[in-house]
């Protein structure tokens, strides 16, 4: 909100610091001054007033009060005394009816007659212009001027245009219409408050004046309104018709009901002075329950305990006084005080401590290390494992990416997600981000698509949350997903082996994935090049190649292999413990064996058979795998190194020969398997 430097100066006899310096002071002790701009002979300060201080500081007077408190300058408020007409009584000129006290806690009105509408005096027009308001005519300008000065929005109606000279504060009827001063028409509803006459609405209360009782060049007699409306009502009303004004901004942040009276009097004074109007006798004041100053007990020791600095009691007292708090009693332990009703933001001790702290100066608070017990923080294993995953993948040459947590509708469709599985954003920033991502894969595919012109080889991963609906519940969980472009199934399988090994997970295996016909229709995976990663027969993720169809949809040129692992499932099996296996003192021996098996036999089937033959078999390595020329049709050849080693004795060739024979025997139990003797 912008404020005029000269206007602020008008509240003080003493010269204010230069605009730049004043801005610095306000920033340090009150609220940030975002910009200073020279306008003619004046400067404007753009101050970011936080919503808690709107009630008393959306006004020049409010800022002046702050300056007065910070700099300890005496504030001067100009005298607005005026003489009312003796014979003409306001209450005989206008009737007021407020339908609901909650909607409108206070309504004050005055009547001024015989005004001469014309342009405003220059000084006034200039002040409005500096603050960004367009001068209209003397009466309207004065109401705006008083709003900028005091924070109280005011409105002037042409008395002679008000039917039956009756003002009613009531809710609008559904569908009721009003034409506003700016020639727009609004359709209202019962959640909107209006100022009406006997016939229809004259103004949208607290938001915008209507055309009907507009002040124009012919206006002679006016009704001034200075009221206090329920802030939520104004806020919802202005939201529902999408109309925000200087008035609604102030009302929806809340205002002091006690402000209406001085504001209307100042307005009347200025109008009388500048338009020659006469002020009817008496103030119409609907004010059913007067707002009284609140009392707060301030525990002096708590001030020191919370701020961490001892502030002498005299200083505390002086700060509170300068801010307008009325000190009722004071002892070494406690200060009892009254809060001015304009300070809607102060209701508890902590609010006062903030006032004391900031005016005293946060820079005067020392740096003091807390005194706490020396205990190490509890370890968060989820974070430890997540870091471990990221580090291992980085070490294996992967680059970590961060993607947005959102996808667009066509991505969801391309990957076969159904609408009822997805979480939709009510108010997305763009249709690109309409749904929460149900998987990390779609955005990773985009990464590949976008990077493929610049990079031959792409190895990326992401650790992040996915969101979907499962069994009509919202599911949010962390996944680890990575990919290598090209035909890289076994590279990625190796990556997973290393990853799981580093995480201390040993009991996992790869199982063939058998999708239901339903799943296979929509699957993004190559139907035959996909493995289910399992632990304890529970699925913890997938490893496989992406189907050509999916690649085409994402315009990806090369093949792509992806792993997609449920982090929450695997982290339960992670362990920090590593047990050392003693090294055997005895040498190992290696023998080879080759087996001819049908083409669809998995190497694991063979390995499982061999492994169980003898404890002397320390390891088995598949070192060759061949099908084609020289091998019978429909068969393939596996060649293994069998590594023999005993823990407790040097292994003898006799033991080895015996075990080799047993292996052959076991393998050849399967009539389709044939051990190839050399």
């Amino acid at each position, binding site marked *: 909100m912008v404020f005029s430097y000269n206007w602020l100066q008008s509240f003080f006899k003493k010269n204010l610091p230069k605009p730049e310096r004043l801005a610095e002071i306000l920033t340090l002790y009150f609220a940030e001054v975002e910009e200073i701009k020279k306008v003619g002979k004046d400067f404007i300060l753009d101050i970011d007033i936080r919503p808690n201080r709107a009630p008393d500081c959306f006004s020049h007077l409010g800022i002046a009060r702050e300056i007065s408190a910070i700099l300890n300058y005496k504030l001067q408020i100009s005298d607005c005394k005026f003489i009312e007409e003796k014979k003409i009584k306001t209450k005989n000129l206008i009737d007021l009816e407020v339908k609901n006290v909650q909607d409108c806690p206070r309504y004050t009105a005055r009547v001024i007659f015989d005004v001469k509408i014309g342009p405003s005096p220059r000084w006034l027009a200039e002040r409005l212009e500096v603050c960004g308001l367009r001068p209209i005519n003397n009466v309207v300008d004065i109401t705006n001027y008083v709003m900028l000065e005091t924070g109280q929005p005011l409105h002037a109606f042409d008395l002679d245009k008000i039917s039956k000279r009756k003002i009613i504060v009531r809710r609008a009827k559904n569908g009721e219409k009003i034409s506003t001063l700016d020639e727009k028409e609004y359709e209202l509803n019962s959640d909107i408050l209006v100022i009406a006459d006997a016939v229809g609405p004259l103004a949208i209360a607290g938001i915008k004046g209507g055309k009907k009782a507009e002040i124009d060049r012919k206006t002679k007699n006016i009704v001034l309104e200075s009221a206090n409306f329920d802030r939520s009502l104004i806020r919802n009303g202005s939201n529902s018709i999408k109309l925000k004004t200087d008035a609604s901004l102030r009302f929806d942040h809340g205002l002091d009901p006690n402000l209406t009276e001085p504001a209307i009097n100042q307005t009347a004074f200025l109008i009388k002075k500048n338009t020659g109007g006469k002020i009817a006798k008496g103030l119409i004041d609907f004010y059913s329950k007067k707002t009284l100053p609140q009392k707060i007990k301030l525990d002096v020791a708590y001030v020191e305990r919370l*701020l961490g600095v001892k502030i002498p009691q005299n200083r505390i007292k002086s700060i509170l006084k300068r801010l307008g708090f009325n000190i009722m009693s004071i002892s070494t332990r406690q200060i009892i005080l009254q809060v001015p009703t304009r300070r809607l933001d102060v209701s508890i001790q902590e609010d006062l401590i903030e006032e004391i702290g900031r005016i005293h100066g*946060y820079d005067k608070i020392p740096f003091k290390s807390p005194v706490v017990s020396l205990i190490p*923080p509890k370890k968060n294993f989820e974070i430890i494992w997540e870091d471990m995953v990221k580090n291992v993948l980085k070490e294996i040459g992967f680059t970590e990416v961060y993607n947005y947590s959102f996808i667009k509708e066509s991505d969801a469709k391309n990957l076969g997600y159904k609408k009822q599985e997805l979480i939709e954003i*009510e108010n997305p920033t763009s249709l690109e981000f309409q749904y*929460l991502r149900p998987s990390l894969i779609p955005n990773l595919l985009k990464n590949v698509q976008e990077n493929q012109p610049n990079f031959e080889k*792409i190895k990326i991963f992401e650790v992040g949350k996915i969101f979907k609906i499962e069994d009509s519940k919202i599911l949010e969980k962390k996944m680890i997903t990575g990919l290598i472009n090209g035909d890289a199934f076994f590279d990625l399988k190796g990556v997973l082996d290393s990853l799981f090994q580093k995480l201390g997970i040993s009991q996992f295996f790869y199982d063939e994935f058998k999708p239901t016909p339903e799943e296979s229709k929509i699957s993004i995976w190559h139907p035959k090049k996909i493995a289910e990663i399992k632990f304890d027969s529970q699925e913890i993720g997938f490893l496989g190649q992406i189907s050509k169809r999916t690649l085409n949809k994402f315009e990806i040129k090369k093949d792509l292999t992806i792993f997609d692992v449920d982090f929450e499932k695997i982290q339960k099996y992670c362990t920090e413990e590593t047990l050392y296996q003693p090294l055997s003192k005895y040498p190992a021996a290696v023998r080879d064996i080759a087996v001819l098996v049908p083409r669809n036999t998995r190497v694991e089937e063979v390995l499982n058979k061999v492994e169980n033959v003898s404890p002397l078999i320390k390891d088995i390595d598949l070192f060759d795998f061949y099908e084609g020329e020289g091998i019978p049709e429909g068969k393939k050849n596996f060649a293994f190194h069998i590594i023999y080693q005993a823990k407790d004795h040097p292994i003898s060739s006799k033991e080895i020969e015996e075990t080799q024979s047993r292996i052959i025997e076991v393998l050849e139990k399967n009539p389709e398997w044939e051990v190839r003797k050399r």
Partner: protein
Amino acid sequence: MELEKVKENILKDIEKVKDLKGLDEIYRKYLSQKGEISLVFENLKNLEREKRIKVGKEANELKNFLEDLLTKKKIEIEDRIQREIEEKEWLDITLPVKKIEVGHLHPLTQVKKKVEDIFQAMGFEVVEGPEIETERYNFDALNIPKEHPARDMWDTLWLRSDNVQCLLLRTHTSPVQVRYMEKNQPPLRIIVPGNVYRHEATDVSHEFQLCQAEGLMVGKDISVANFKAVIREFLKNFFGKEIKIRLKPDFFPFTEPSFDVSMNCLVCDGKGCPACKKSGWLEIAGAGMVHPNVFKNSGLNPKDWQGWAFGFGLDRLAMMKFKIGDIRLFRSGDLRFLQQF
């Protein structure tokens, strides 16, 4: 006497030798079967006992002496030859490297880790919370009632739902304050990293998805002075040098008093530059003393506890640390950017 002579000759010969072949000749001359020293041994049997012992001993010493000499000389010659070969060799050390594939952690991961490490070293526990939040945790429990203009400070992304309960994407990590205090009795110290979301248009310095870190410390007498010390210590460790900090009044519904934290601008060292809008200061965090209502809403008695909370953007911290000019790069997935870290 004869041996003295032999030794003299040996020394002369060794002096002259230039290559391995020469050494071989010396060996042959003295130590081969027909060599001069071998001949001395050969002749021993013709000497009388006493002389035999004396000459034998001397011959042995001479033999060892020569052998040592030959070994030393051999090493000397070999070294020289090797050096001569190497002198002729040459490597163009400016040829391009052989690419070694290394991975890269995202800059935000690196910054997050550093933040976690520093706070953990000061006894803070790292805690996470859900990104989908209820209106209660994100707003109400944090003393931000519905229809209060303070809610306008957070433009929110809401989830479409038929349920009565309104769900949203958390606009800050602060809900975890309440979630944690509901389950854990103070004294406590936590640091909460995580994603937050805002309904906001993006540009070089604005993002609608951000990484934030929240800190919370609660005890019997935890004060603003303690906050100043801890945050300064953190910044000093994070940037690796002394950092000046400054608190300014601010407003957050869930802290009272509230302030924001600025540090001296590292670009201009506090002199004033475009990065700090000529103020010499950069705002880095919002903070304050936990509002009594937040304690109440977490099931704690505000009379028993006090403490502070703060929140800052990891994106912003990373931008400052790595001098990144466009916040949108973080989630661009562009490997040309990511592989610089």
